[in-house]
């Protein structure tokens, strides 16, 4: 259980870092000039990096909730930008490639790893 817990924690940190790198790259390469969206990308990347570092060190359980919330929020923002628009910003499909696909995959994995961790901890608590 202990090993699984560490693996899940590091997995969440890694997927968050990937999403952060992707957003930071897009911010640096042009997105910073898009009104509102640029700031949102910078904030997303910064919070991703901060949470990833703290998760690697250890940290309380709420860090994982924050990580899952951030990843889920990013996925919702992605979906909005491909449908009704987000603050007047829209993009099509998996553009910009490959960053859109990398981010979405990483964020989905963050949520999945968080959910698995939550399930395991509840099962362990019920067994005791």
């Amino acid at each position, binding site marked *: 259980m202990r090993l699984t817990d560490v693996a899940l924690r590091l997995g969440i940190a890694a997927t968050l870092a990937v999403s*952060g790198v992707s957003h*930071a790259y897009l*911010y*640096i*390469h*042009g*997105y*910073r*000039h*898009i*009104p509102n*969206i640029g700031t949102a990308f*910078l*904030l997303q*990347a*910064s*919070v991703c*990096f*901060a*949470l990833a*570092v*703290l998760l690697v060190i250890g*940290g*309380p359980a*709420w*860090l994982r909730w*924050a990580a899952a919330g951030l990843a889920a929020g990013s996925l919702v923002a992605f979906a909005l930008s491909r449908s009704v*628009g987000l603050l*007047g*910003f*829209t*993009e*099509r499909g998996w*553009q*910009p490639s490959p960053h859109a696909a990398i981010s979405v995959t990483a964020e989905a994995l963050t949520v999945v790893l968080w959910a698995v961790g939550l399930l395991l901890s509840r099962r362990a608590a019920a067994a005791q």
Partner: protein
Amino acid sequence: MTSDRDPSSMTRRQLIRHSAWFGSAVVLTVVGGEVISHIAGSTPKTSQATRPTLRFAQISDSHIGFSGGANPNVADTFTEAINQVNSLGYTPDFVMHTGDLTHLATPAQFDQVKQMLTGLRTPHIFTVPGEHDTGDDAGQKYRQVFGAGTRGDGWYSFDIAGVHVIALVNTVHLPKLGQLGKEQLEWIEKDVAGVSNDTPIIVFSHIPMFAMYPDWGWGTEDAAQALSYLKRFSSVTCLNGHVHQLFTKTEGNVTFYTATTTAYPLPHPGDGPAPKPVTLPAGQLHDALGIREVSYVKGQQALALKEQKLQ
């Protein structure tokens, strides 16, 4: 000794520990943000020290001659927009009006808008026609007033501060969507043939160069052909009017920005059966109108845009 503390409540030590983690998260977020901003070369210190190579303003859709409840006096709001451009705190290198200068393309409306534009304090005023400017005579009256030095239906290009600017006409042939036509497409291909890949490209047009909402004609039928000639450039920025609202999208190397209007708002895509002028509650019109500032710093890929509501 007994304790009456709730076992599920947090001890002082736990509270301090959680606060420390939270504080660390905030500090790391700020540090991360600073590092990314620094890498992007967009820290406040840098941006203040770097004067833009090119600064210009975009105004759009003035509809001089319009009369209706959505804006009882479009001339007044256009004058306010001009005053706002003149109050930017610097002289823009040029001002671009992205079409629908007039509402009905009458000689009197063209005279009026031409006179009003002379109030702009800038070395150069450029325009592209909207469908309201070209509707009844394929743009002849428009070109008599604003067509000097242009080609074909009124398209042209110029270079300024290391940026190549292309002004297109997609409102003369208007089956449903905007259309550039074969002649203009051939001209675009030739026009950019000698331009180096790292030159930033700015494309002005009235109707969006992307399919914003084809059901309402908010798109250009042969835009993909035009944009294919611009694929090799590292930065392409398309600025347009027509839709009377701000909207942004990115496709590969191209970023599209629609501009707001100085006259009256239109509904968001799909809100209602047709894009008819929207009458806002009293006092809210100015929030829907505005001007746009655009700046470019040499060496950077993208342009910086700043939207201003009409004051």
